[in-house]
């Protein structure tokens, strides 16, 4: 209980410090293009009231959600396949290692060539950003299942299927979820990148537009809204993992 309280206090303190520093730097000002927290908040409030911000978020969230969903499903499945089967590992892992290392912004023009400037291209940017880390994490998670748990399942006559579903998957779930969190964050980056580089829509449009007419508080409000969206989504993922796979952490 005391520890809970202390960790909450620390979280609050870290927010206060960062936000306070922002406000201070904005008031100095560090640069004319760097608005204070209060100016940004006022702009965000105004943009929420007249509906521009929610509308933009609603547009941006579409390729995010489609892309992240595809990446999560495909990524975890591919990761499990590579982790459970040596041949799939040989086939798949080098590809994802290369993809993970590639500077993906450089591939975007190629994607535009293939998919145009619409939703498909943006979804593909999200997927390409998110999938490698999800695959690689799921793969490592499966490969690192405790040897003695596998031996235990074998000695108590578990079938391959039972071993996968009752031992390997639950054991791998923390690392798989860590990959999902990283992948989701990367996917969100991809979604914004796509709106900035492919065609300005949603939040990307707000950012470019307000930047071009030097309305920096509005521009920052748009940026902050996307960060908050991403943070909320990651928190949601955390809760889901706890609910589905970690009864021992709920009990403690």
């Amino acid at each position, binding site marked *: 209980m005391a520890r809970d309280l202390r960790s909450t206090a620390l979280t609050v303190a870290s927010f206060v410090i960062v936000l306070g520093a922002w406000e201070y730097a904005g008031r100095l000002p560090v640069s004319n293009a760097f608005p204070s927290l209060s100016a940004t908040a006022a702009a965000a409030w105004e943009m929420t009231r007249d509906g521009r911000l929610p509308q933009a978020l609603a547009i941006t969230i579409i390729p995010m959600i489609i892309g992240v969903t595809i990446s999560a499903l495909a990524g975890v499945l591919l990761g499990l396949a590579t982790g459970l089967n040596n041949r799939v590992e040989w086939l798949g892992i080098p590809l994802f290692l290369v993809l993970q290392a590639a500077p993906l912004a450089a591939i975007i023009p190629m994607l535009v060539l293939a998919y145009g400037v619409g939703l498909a291209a943006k979804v593909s940017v999200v997927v390409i950003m998110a999938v490698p880390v999800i695959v690689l994490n799921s793969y490592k998670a499966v490969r690192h299942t405790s040897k003695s748990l596998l031996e235990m399942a074998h000695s*108590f*006559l578990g079938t391959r299927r039972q071993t996968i579903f009752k031992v390997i998957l639950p054991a791998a779930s923390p690392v798989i979820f860590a990959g999902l969190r990283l992948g989701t964050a990367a996917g969100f980056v991809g979604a914004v990148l796509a709106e900035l580089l492919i065609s300005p829509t949603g939040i990307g449009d707000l950012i470019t537009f307000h930047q071009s007419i030097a309305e920096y508080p509005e521009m920052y409000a748009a940026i902050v809204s996307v960060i908050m969206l991403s943070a909320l989504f990651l928190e949601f993922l955390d809760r889901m993992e706890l609910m589905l796979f970690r009864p*021992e952490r709920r009990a403690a």
Partner: protein
Amino acid sequence: MTVANATIETGTAAVRVRGVSMIYPGPVHALQDVDLDFAAGQLTSLLGPSGCGKTTLLKIIAGLLTPASGTVMVNGKKVEGPGPERAFVFQDFALLPWANVLRNVAFGLELRGVPTSEREAVAEKYIGEVGLRGFERKYPHELSGGMRQRVGLARALSVKADVLLMDEPFSAVDEQTRRKFQEDLLQLVTVEKRTFLFVTHSIEEAVYLSDRIVLLSPRPGKVWKIIEPDMSRELSPDQIRREPGYLDTVESIWQNLKDYVE
């Protein structure tokens, strides 16, 4: 599976090991030409310094390792993998961290497709027998090392295997807990009337618990001597530790093993 305890005649061989050799890449001769019989209803210890292949032999009997040559027969049937008549207790407990005590103990039965209510009833019984009543809903990380191994033991007992294979079950448990656990295990051996194979590197533990002690010598692992502690099992746990027969056996095993300790 329910060919249970009544049919076991104490003294007949439940496990027969014939000509078993094991070579690890290297090559390391972990075991060479081991012939052994393990009597039904008894507790037999495999004792020896590290590198003598005692855990390897236990895992071969469990069907978790395939020997380079030789055969193992359990209840007259050749071992070709794990089987329902054998259950394993792991050195590092091998409990599912995300499952509570009840599910962990019932896990062997869960893998065999026994319905939930039935397997939990069996698990409850053995949770009581190993002294963990009241801890059914706890998770492994909430238990001490000794309690975790009691869970591992209850899991092995729950599947009603005739032969229990225990791989240094107390080595990760602190000394006080270990003593208490040893006393409880002796009690269990009398109650359960099953065949126990017990790997240990502790001479005292082997003498205290065993009806028979198989001494293995290292590199290559070979059966070197078989000792039957000359002491009465009627004594209380504390009396045994002071009994001359117990102390003499410990001493003579130590004199024998000394040469192998560098």
